[in-house]
């Protein structure tokens, strides 16, 4: 271990090369060398009322998603968790501000017929009412569930003229195109099991469905996105700051032939079209499992983490290429974010990465990267003990592993997940859906010290509201400026691995105790700056010249 003067930069002997005991010693040394806060993440799923597994045969080797969103109007994130061959479950969040995480299963919240075969969930307010709806990805018919009060959902496929198909769906993304009242939906499909020669080279096409015209949403006219290459994650992304999101897909090379990663141009009123070589798109072939997007350098051009078997890619737009071309460089190695094999334990085989998500889990103002890991099932050439990664962003723009130090290095096969503040204390908690193992629920206790957890940096959580269409402002950009630092977040539905979030957007602000927020609304309009104090939940309504703060329910009653 070499500690430089800039102690955020840790030149570590790869822990994967060490014996277990030596690795533990190295971990202690690394704690000392890590300058930034390392969160204490305590696994308390059973105690918090979450008992759930993602199970099933081959079709459920992939998937295993979770949606975190509010389904009962209290603004606390509730959870819908895929069960694979088992039943999906809905859990209502009963936590109180800063208290222990507490959930209750919502019996009957999800309708019969949509509970089994579920690979993932994405929350989305599809019909612009007061309740968030749910997109249910399944092996077989996909389902759209209309949200009602008190976490009650009803099937809406027929009302929406939505044909859920028979495919094996594993990815989803949504966007609101210009002038549209209702969202455009994209479904990513995996192997077509009924095709000749399956599974090899038989990836299903993916689907783009624009809303029909009319006062109520209808989804009767899908566009097949051909060819499909077994998408395991997709996201609408404004990759070139054009204001027109394109559809990025990450695809699993395990099953495609002559496939690659894909980016689809989705221009309003025109059929989606894949970027080609002539557009500058370069062939990248990975076992693409999950996408996470973040604008790490706040230049308006997002970076993408792509999980895979072996190394994770961290792509940034190549600044030496034609700026109109989607040419990407992989900077994962340079930034210490490859996460290519287990960082602890004796298993030196390559990793298998799934859900990826950027957020600032230690509130130091730098984005961190969570990656769920786990062997597909029993693939002998890949690590069997493959703990999830927590790559903390360092002050020089790199990443350093803190999975073992934080407490998340469990011997479970991770799939989907969510990095989200569940007890509204400003510190991000972590949910990981595991294959054939209990869901992991980690409560963030604060930064590790010798005397116990201590508070971490400052934070903000921001909720955007619009009247009329697109109430949650999907597609909006949030700029949070403190001093010279600008932190950028997007409101997006998609990405990760079969897992989505809707609700407060979290921003760590480090030592900044106040910030100026500007919103680029989905229609391109920039807001005036809003001045807010850190460590608050901020609700911003489009058109309003003032914000409102929101306060979570507390345990004790005063007066």
């Amino acid at each position, binding site marked *: 271990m070499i500690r430089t*003067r*800039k*102690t*955020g*930069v840790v030149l570590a002997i790869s822990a994967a090369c060490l014996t277990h005991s030596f690795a533990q010693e190295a971990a202690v040394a690394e704690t000392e060398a890590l*300058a*930034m*806060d390392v969160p204490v993440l305590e696994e308390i799923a059973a105690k918090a009322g979450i008992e759930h597994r993602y199970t099933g045969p081959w079709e459920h080797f992939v998937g295993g998603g979770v949606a975190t969103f509010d389904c009962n*109007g*209290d*603004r606390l994130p509730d959870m819908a968790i895929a069960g694979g061959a088992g039943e999906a479950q809905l859990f209502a969040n009963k936590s109180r501000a800063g208290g222990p995480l507490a959930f209750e299963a919502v019996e009957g919240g999800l309708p019969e017929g949509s509970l089994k075969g579920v690979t993932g969930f994405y929350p989305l307010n599809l019909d612009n009412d007061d309740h968030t709806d749910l997109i249910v990805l399944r092996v077989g018919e996909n389902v759209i569930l209309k949200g009602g009060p008190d976490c009650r959902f009803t099937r809406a496929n027929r009302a929406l003229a939505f044909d859920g198909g028979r495919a094996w769906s594993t990815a989803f993304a949504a966007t609101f195109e210009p002038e549209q009242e209702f969202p455009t939906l994209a479904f990513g499909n995996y192997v077509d099991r009924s095709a000749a020669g399956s599974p090899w080279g038989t990836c299903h096409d993916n689907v783009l469905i624009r809303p029909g015209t009319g006062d109520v949403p209808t989804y009767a006219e899908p566009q097949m996105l051909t060819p499909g290459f077994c998408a395991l994650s997709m996201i609408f992304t404004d990759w070139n700051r054009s204001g027109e999101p394109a559809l990025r897909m990450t695809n699993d090379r395990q099953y495609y032939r002559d496939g690659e990663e894909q980016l689809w141009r989705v221009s309003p009123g025109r059929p989606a079209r894949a970027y080609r070589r002539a557009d500058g798109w370069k062939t990248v072939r990975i076992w693409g499992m999950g996408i996470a997007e973040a604008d790490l350098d706040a230049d308006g051009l997002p970076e993408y983490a792509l999980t895979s078997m072996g190394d994770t890619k961290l792509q940034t737009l190549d600044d030496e290429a034609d700026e109109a071309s989607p040419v990407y460089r992989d900077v994962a190695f340079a930034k210490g974010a490859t996460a290519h094999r287990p960082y602890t334990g004796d298993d030196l085989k390559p990793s298998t990465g799934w859900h990826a998500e950027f957020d600032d889990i230690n*509130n*130091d103002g730098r984005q961190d990267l969570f990656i769920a890991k786990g062997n597909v099932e029993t693939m002998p050439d890949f690590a069997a003990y493959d703990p999830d990664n927590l790559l903390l962003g*360092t*002050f*020089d723009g790199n990443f350093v592993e803190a999975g073992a130090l934080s407490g998340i290095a469990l011997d479970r096969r991770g799939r989907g997940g969510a990095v989200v503040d569940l007890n509204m204390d400003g510190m991000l908690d972590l949910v990981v859906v595991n294959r054939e193992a209990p869901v992991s629920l980690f409560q963030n206790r*604060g930064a590790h010290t010798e*005397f116990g957890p*201590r*508070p*971490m*940096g*400052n934070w903000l959580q921001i909720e955007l509201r619009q009247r009329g269409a697109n109430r949650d402002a999907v597609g909006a950009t949030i700029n949070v400026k*403190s*001093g*010279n*630092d600008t932190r950028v977040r997007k409101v997006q539905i998609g990405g990760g691995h079969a897992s989505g979030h809707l609700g407060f957007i979290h921003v760590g602000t*480090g*030592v*900044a*105790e*106040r910030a100026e927020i500007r919103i680029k609304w989905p229609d391109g309009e920039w807001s005036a700056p809003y*001045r*807010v*104090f*850190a*460590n*608050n939940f901020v*609700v911003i309504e489009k058109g309003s010249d*003032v*914000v*409102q*703060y*929101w*306060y*979570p*329910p*507390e345990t004790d*009653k*005063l*007066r």
Partner: protein
Amino acid sequence: MRQSFSRLVILATASLSITLPHLAYGETPAPWSERAVFEHVDQAGFAGVLSKPELDALIAFGETLFAARFTTLDGAGRPMATQAIIPTKRKRAAPATFQRMAGLDGNSCASCHNDPVMGGAGDFTVNVFVSEGFNNADFDTTDPQFSNERNTNHLFGAGLVELLAREMSVDLQLIRRNALALARETGEAQRATLVSKGVRFGRITAKPDGLLELKEIDGVDTDLVIRPFSQKGVMTSLRQFTVNALNHHHGMQPVERFGARWTGETDFDEDNKSDELTLGDVSSLVAWQATLPPPGQMVPTNVDWQNAAKQGAEVFQTIGCASCHVPALPLNSLEFHDPGPLDAAGTLRIDETQSGAVYDLSLLDWAQNLPRNEQGQVMVPLFGDLKRHKMTDRQISAFGNELLSQRFVERDVFQTTELWGVGSTAPYGHRGDMTTFDEVIQAHGGAGRDAREAYLDLEDVDQSALIAYLKTLVIEQ
């Protein structure tokens, strides 16, 4: 480099000897050493309510730091860091170590806070230039488009001021919590008046879904934290202000904000000195400032002055000065917790250390003479309300001479100046550019306009009496 932990006997001002835990330099400095800081206080060495000898020892060390003329051997200078309160790198090295505008602009705390004694205010010559320093780190002009020029405030009674602000913040936040709880319970919006210690801060409206409307809040930040320090009332605590000032004015960077935890570096300002001031060092400075005695009211030996001051005290009330310059606010507790309860990350917080200390101000001699009301509360004679007011209007705008807002507070909005000690701290006004009380009273516009007009309507003898009264509010020497 610090190499060892040991304990050092420090002779406290009360002539008691007490061991104060400290971190010593490896070598013993020669008596002629050009260092100003010979050892550092170890925060881990003290916790809980400090005994009088412990407190005295800490205060004594704080006094040495407050008076210290920091040198480059201590870490003075910040060649690659700006004056900003959020650690910010310069794009290029500062062209000069000292520079009156962007700093370094002082060699020691006491080089500005010295009138009439150490800890006091400063003349116009030691005005400081307040700029958040993110984009204009190297400004070298007094043009107000780059910074706000501010006079140096005195620090006497600062511990009591912070304690008042803490209690008032608790009051306001309790009103908020109750309004939210009631709104959730009843399903109906609750509009509540924010009032603490008789000072009103507007209203809030709590909604059943937990949302809080902020637009009617008046004179306090939207998080309902009273920030009692600086001319604007934008700094939460002595500790926060101290950390800011040590970097801004001296380039001495405390670890609690500029250390590796928040910057990734132990030498953020790149002056080849690591971890320049410890948690304990800052605590000692806080202890010294927090325990400075409050200014008082002197009784003139001149009988005419005595009589005039007595008459002036009545005038002060009748023309409305006392509506903002409230003569005294009640304080429940003299226990000064350091770190305090309201600071945000970047200033040491209570739960960040095992060794938070309590400075019991009632142990101090001056505390014995503090007036108390019937409820036993200390009546802190600060002549202020710890509230911000707009101080200009269309006709009277002398206090609107700044061009930059500061930390969300508009350019012509200032916290009520506490008048205790005002008889010792001319010149006046936030820029220190008014030489007489008459000038500064006449500069009151906006929220102070009615009192100003009432003052102008006074007979000469009453105007003179008011000034006689203000002249009795002095810092004891």
